[in-house]
């Protein structure tokens, strides 16, 4: 039950949009047209001036603060930085992370035998990144999860690993953001 009822000023809205909403339509079309012509002349002059990006052939460069899909950091030796401590699994509010820990002979002792993220469920909140004591899981600039089945949007460790040298900006950013030294 709603505890508060919001009264909509219908008369005011009608006045602003005009009869048959012609005023609002004209306003919208004006914006469309402005961008169309600016685009057209820019293209004719050989230097496009507007923000339209030919996705998916082109992609925008996202700022380091951008929170895309969480990915795993891959070290120079090809292994994951993750030690399967389970803190991200615990922190995840939608329970989309599944980790099976196992023992390795390396000095770090533990590694995730299985590391699955259900991208269909992930809500890009970044709590896993904040919880991670090893800077092993970070939010990337990836956003595309489209696939033809639900199995395909369950991402496994192999899909999630990204070499550390492709993530320096985000790593610097989280060190700054979470006050780590």
């Amino acid at each position: 039950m709603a505890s508060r009822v919001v009264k909509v000023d219908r008369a005011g809205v009608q006045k602003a949009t005009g009869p048959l909403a012609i005023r609002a339509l004209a306003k919208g079309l004006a914006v469309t047209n402005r961008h169309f012509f600016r685009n057209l002349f820019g293209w004719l002059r050989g230097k496009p001036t507007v923000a339209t990006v030919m996705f998916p052939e082109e992609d925008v460069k996202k700022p380091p603060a951008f929170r895309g899909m969480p990915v795993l950091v891959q070290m120079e030796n090809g292994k994951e930085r993750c030690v399967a401590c389970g803190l991200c699994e615990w922190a995840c509010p939608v329970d989309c992370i599944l980790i099976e820990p196992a023992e390795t002979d390396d000095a770090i002792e533990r590694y995730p035998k299985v590391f699955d993220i259900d991208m269909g469920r992930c809500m890009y909140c970044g709590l896993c990144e904040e919880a991670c004591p090893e800077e092993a899981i970070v939010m990337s600039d990836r956003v595309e999860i489209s696939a033809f089945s639900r199995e395909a949007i369950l991402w496994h460790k192999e899909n999630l690993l990204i070499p550390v040298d492709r993530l320096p900006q985000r790593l610097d950013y989280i060190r700054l953001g979470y006050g780590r030294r």
Partner: protein
Amino acid sequence: MSERSVQPKNPVKVIIDGREIVAEAGHTLLQVALDNGIEIPHYCYHPKLSIDGSCRMCQVKIQRVPKLAISCNTPVTDGMVVDTQSAEVAEARRGVMELLLINHPLDCPICDKAGECYLQDYSFGYGRQHARTTSPRRKGLKRHPIGPRVVFDEERCILCRRCVRFTQEISKTGELGVLGIGDRSHIGTAPDRPLDNAYSVCTADICPVGALLSADFHHKRRVWFLEEVESVCPGCANGCNVKLGMFRNEIQRLVPRRNDAVNDTWMCDHGRLNYHFAQDETRVRVPRVDGVTPERGNGSRPAIDAAAAVEEVARRIRGAIDTHGAGAVALIGSAHLTNEECYRLVGLRDAIGTPHLDLVVPLGDTDDFLIKAEKAANARGARDVGVQPGAGGKAAADILAACAAGEIKVLYVVGSADLLAVHGEESVLRALAEVETVIAQDANRSALTDRADIVLPGLTWAEKDGSFTNHAGRVQRIRQAMTPPEGALTDGEVFVRVAAWVQDGTAPAAFDVRATLAEIAMTLPAYRDVTLDGLGSHGLEQRTTTGPQIVTPGG
């Protein structure tokens, strides 16, 4: 917590943090505080070990005492006024924490203790946030197999010496010691004597940090994901109180639970590691009647489910009674069943009308501490409720002899592994060759379930509610921790159903643990005050004096 005596024999009054507490003279200040719910941080003190006083974490301010005193080694005296919260105490704790953490590796992400670590807890509660030292931390052994079941991490050790005192005072084997002096002291063993005794993993329990770890649980699961269920160890007649660490319907570990009347805070390694049978590949998950299972029919016969298998059992028993008399049916019970199930097994025996029912209990090593000879949790309870030969009934060995002689036509065995272990696999199978129908009800596969004509899946102790009676007559509660295999009936349900079908072919009543225990309480004077919910966490001592026997209607 421990059961405190309600009335101290020699009472003294102490005031801790403004609270007036009546305590027993001579008890230590730390114990009195803990018993009264006042938290004083401590590492080296353990209620079941001697006092060491080495960690200095439990320092408190006592009025008219010039310096701070360690509460673990200070007996309470009358009129003592104690402050556990003053700024002086907080500063001392901060200092102790800082010194303990100077060489601690802080590898909590890969440490199994993380989540139940005293060093973590007290560091958050009483320590400072950041280290002030920049010198490199001391290096030590990592993942060192100090014994066959214990892993040692030297860097994490804070030298509280709990484990050393444990091996000296409880296991009385003395493998561990502090070697070296000063900054270089560390826990170690003699070169040819690893930490290998019947209770060695208890050192991992009492280790306040992650220095000693159970090899079985090593890197297996984070403790904060475990759902802990209070139960009783099924390994022997002692009935040590345990907690089952459950995760995704699997037992991850067993840890002892404090019960001063049974096991203090300890348990043996065998019991601790004896849980894999509940979830390994030998589990019997589906019934089988003459090769027909729920997945697979057999020519003319359709596939069966558990209820149909139980009905088939009753039909065979009925057939044997009709052609050969009730004496041609024999039952062998198991000491792994709960009291309630045993009671229903006796009910099944009465429904059949045969006197031949016996209990088979495997025997094994024993010591003068916790390990008892009878290697099943509920031998005493089973005998109490009547799982033993009736008037004119045969004992297990005689039942087998009668089987070999062809007198027994239907043999119903619950818990097949025990029978094979006690009477020998070969001789049991030879005796069974003459039996028309062998019914085996067990949780795990064995040579007997392979031979049996009808196999019913049994449940392990982790999958059912009920009560066990230990060797000393203490009735203790076990709780369901796991979801049983799909479609499986509890053992009690099987007995109730078979009994009803055998008796008059009617649809049976359901098996109810509470109602069954209430029935036991009405029938047996020793169980007079026992109710399932009355057992609590620590169980009830059985009545030794016989009260007035209440005769129930209908026997």
